[in-house]
């Protein structure tokens, strides 16, 4: 069964490939900011109810229902302000969709922030962009300036009585700041170490005020949903996974890229019809990481049937994550890729919780030994044992995200580890 490609009207990010004008004129020509006034005049509770009905789930990795998250925010009490914070600290290996939104279609995010701030009773929104995206944040700053000049931002927007200001805040290179409470710490000018929850950000967030944090893609998708309605949105994807989604397909494919497609598309179709196929053909496929480095690999056999949505990939023991599809063909040294990912987590652990600080490094060193041919068969079991002792024992989900792919690789590709160890034992006599 093939999923029809999205028409340009149905795409949320109409300039994702960068072929058109990224500025405000281009965006308005593509239908942007049309109907904004009506959205700002409507009561936030109406919008939030509609979002609940749309089954929009967060695009940053966890897939939490956005409408429900927004309903947790208290009404502004006049003492503490409410904040909307956009998480553009994109850093999960394989993920690069937000970068293309920021540089090619930044006004989708600006409009989303305006509507989001209105829904959440926030007068100020911050967009936390990873520090390395210097050029991209320049674009975003320009887009914000354009929107302000056109009267879409500032005080009393288009006579609706809604005030919104948006500011860009650049980080400085720490993957953990993509975790929402670490991001808040970083935005407050501190080390990005996650907070213990509860209290949740909706009660005690930025500067101790009620705060909602959402991914770039999620926020940008809100205005089209509210304007076009849930029937439009829900025609894409399966129950509980509706909508359109950007898939970042990288690695061993002929045409890597960011593609907006309907949810619940099959993995095979995504790779063949959008990304130009696996280098060397579908039979040359070895494995796929379906949702960024934190999600366990799929074996080639599973890739034949995998459906790209939250529930479909969960059923296969992995996850949609950020929908960053990393393709490995048979020319790829899969063990080296896994060792590199483990090294990444060792480098990025914030060091706050002992199981993560010590354990993730331990697994990385074991992995390095194994690929260098110094490992033993017993160490495979030891490695699995260590991952199980780290998982679920830390403040945030970082350690889980570091350990699940190791467990997944051991499950599907244990034979590769064993072969490597035996080869080396033979070579060393």
């Amino acid at each position, binding site marked *: 069964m093939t999923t029809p490609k999205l028409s340009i009207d149905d795409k949320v990010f109409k300039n994702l490939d960068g072929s058109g004008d990224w500025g405000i004129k281009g965006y308005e020509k593509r239908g942007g900011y049309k109907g904004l006034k009506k959205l700002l005049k409507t009561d936030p509770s109406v919008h939030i109810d509609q979002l609940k009905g749309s089954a929009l789930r967060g695009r940053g990795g966890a897939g939490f229902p956005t409408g429900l998250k927004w309903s947790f925010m208290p009404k502004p009490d006049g003492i503490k302000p409410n904040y909307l914070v956009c998480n553009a600290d*994109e850093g999960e290996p394989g993920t690069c969709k937000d970068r293309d939104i920021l540089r090619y279609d930044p006004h989708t995010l600006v409009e989303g922030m305006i509507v989001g701030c209105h829904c959440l009773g926030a007068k100020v929104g911050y967009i936390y962009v990873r520090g390395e995206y210097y050029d991209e944040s320049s674009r975003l700053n320009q887009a914000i300036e354009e929107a302000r000049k056109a009267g879409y931002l500032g005080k009393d927007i288009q006579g609706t009585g809604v005030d919104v200001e948006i500011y860009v805040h650049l980080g400085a290179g720490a993957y953990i700041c993509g975790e929402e409470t670490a991001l808040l710490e970083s935005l407050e000018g501190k080390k990005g170490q996650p907070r213990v929850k509860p209290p949740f950000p909706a009660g005690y967030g930025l500067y101790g005020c009620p705060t909602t944090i959402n991914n770039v893609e999620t926020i940008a998708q809100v205005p089209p949903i509210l304007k076009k309605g849930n029937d439009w949105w829900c025609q894409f994807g399966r129950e509980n996974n509706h909508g359109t989604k950007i898939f970042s397909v990288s690695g061993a494919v002929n045409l*890597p890229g960011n593609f907006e497609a309907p949810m619940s598309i099959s993995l095979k179709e995504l790779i063949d019809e959008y990304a130009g196929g696996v280098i060397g053909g579908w039979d040359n496929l070895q494995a796929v990481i379906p949702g960024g480095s934190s999600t366990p690999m799929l074996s080639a056999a599973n890739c034949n049937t995998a459906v790209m949505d939250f529930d479909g990939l969960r059923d296969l023991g992995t996850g949609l994550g950020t929908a960053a599809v990393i*393709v490995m063909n048979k020319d790829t040294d899969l063990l080296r890729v896994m060792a590199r990912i483990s090294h990444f987590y060792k480098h990025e652990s914030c060091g706050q919780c002992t199981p993560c600080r010590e354990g993730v490094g331990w697994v990385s060193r074991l992995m390095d030994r194994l690929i260098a041919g110094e490992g033993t068969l017993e160490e495979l079991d030891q490695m699995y044992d260590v991952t199980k002792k780290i998982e679920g024992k830390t403040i945030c989900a970082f350690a889980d995200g570091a350990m699940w792919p190791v467990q997944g690789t051991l499950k599907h590709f244990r034979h590769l580890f064993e072969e490597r160890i035996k080869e080396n034992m033979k070579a060393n006599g």
Partner: protein
Amino acid sequence: MATTAKKTQAAIKMVGPETQVRANHSGLEFSKETEAKIKRILKRYPEEQSQSALIPVLKLAQDEFGGWLSTSAMQLTAERLNLPYIRVYEVATFYTMFNLDPVGKYHVQVCTNCSCMIRGSDAIVEAVKEYTGLKGQHEISDDSLFTLTEVECLGACVEAPMMQINNHYYTKLDKEQTLQILDNLKKGNEVVDATPTKPMKDSY
């Protein structure tokens, strides 16, 4: 300015005499241009939350004083934002983008994470070493122009392999392009650039 100085002194006292000695001797000054940027940055946050400006201001300090953060540069940042030195130091040591040792004029950061690795980042690292004569990471080349660092995912995976030099991304690389980019930088020529994201305006 007098009240600012007093506040700084009060803050410094909280963290002990050694810091106080250092804090009084930053010996550096932000340029007028940077100072204007700092003022713009501070306006983004509530008045009593000026610590929020720490990361952006540290980055400005790094850019202004040679691409790395000396103790003096961190002192100056602390003084400017009325923060104890230790607050600045712990943030500077936490984040990867802050260099605590000198780097070359061009800090070449090659992504070697999975998507880039699959598409041949090894060859890019080798090309940088070949051109610059650098043997390992974090060293400075003999002509003081280059430092090589292998970095974690820079979020341009569909344009792999890629590298970042100072603030700018160079993507869809191969060996020849890498050599050419470095050569153009060295000779001060315009750099051939595959990335269409030109900075339109200073981000700060």
